[in-house]
């Protein structure tokens, strides 16, 4: 039972690290601000979620009792509310600041204009 939990914990922690890394790669690769938001939401949801799940399993393995489990659950709940709110606020601020999203049909036209090879 103990070893099953430990294996599950490692799968969660390594999976979470993988998705955090993917989020970072996405921020570097994606072309503009709004598509980069989509990359950060990968690390916000799956990355943070899996790492928190792994830590919750760790508290069970170490038999620390309820308190750390409840605290980790609260972190997960607050992240689920605050991270989309913050992303929405940032996106809205960006639009008000005059940032134009680079859309598929428009991006192609721009590239043709600039003669960029994509």
């Amino acid at each position, binding site marked *: 039972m103990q070893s099953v939990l430990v294996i599950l914990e490692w799968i969660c922690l390594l999976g979470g690290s993988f998705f955090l890394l993917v989020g970072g790669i996405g921020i570097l690769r*994606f072309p503009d601000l709004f*598509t980069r938001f989509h990359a950060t*939401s*990968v690390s916000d949801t799956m990355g943070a979620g899996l790492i928190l799940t792994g830590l919750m399993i760790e508290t069970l393995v170490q038999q620390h009792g*309820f308190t750390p489990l409840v605290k980790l659950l609260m972190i997960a709940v607050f992240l689920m509310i605050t991270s989309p709110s913050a992303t929405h606020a940032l996106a*809205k601020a960006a639009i008000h600041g005059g940032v134009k999203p680079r*859309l598929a049909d428009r*991006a192609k036209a721009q590239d043709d204009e600039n003669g960029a090879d994509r």
Partner: protein
Amino acid sequence: MIHKLSVGIFLICLWLLLSWHFTPLLLGLGLVSTLLVLYLSIRMEIIDREGHPLHLTLSTLRYLPWLIVKIVQANLDVTWRILHPRMPIDPTQEKVKCSQKSDLGKVIYANSITLTPGTLSMSIDADTIEVHSLTSTAIEELRQNTMDRKVTQMVGED
């Protein structure tokens, strides 16, 4: 009244769970801080249906598993697109209908859209949400209104 009572019980449970010490001193401090917070919230008039949505407790437990499955699916899709050498994305921006009447319902729907990787709510009007999406397929899926209906059902406005 029922909201004030439930906030009080919630705060006491929170204190007990987070401290897990049962000495008279710490229990007394917990009671004092609970009553203080309760008094301040009543004075600020922030305990109402919107600030403490008691009526959504059970329906949230039904909606959350569905949303988590959706989030995992969308995550795998976006991850595949990030790591794909040719990065197959076609960013789209469109207005999507939202059928919720209350502000709380709209906030839950817009946050669900943003929480799902690949779609991002940019601004909210009376009955539409402007959505930026990484791919046109993601916005097609939103247009089928499955999530919209689930949220409306959850806040009990259908």
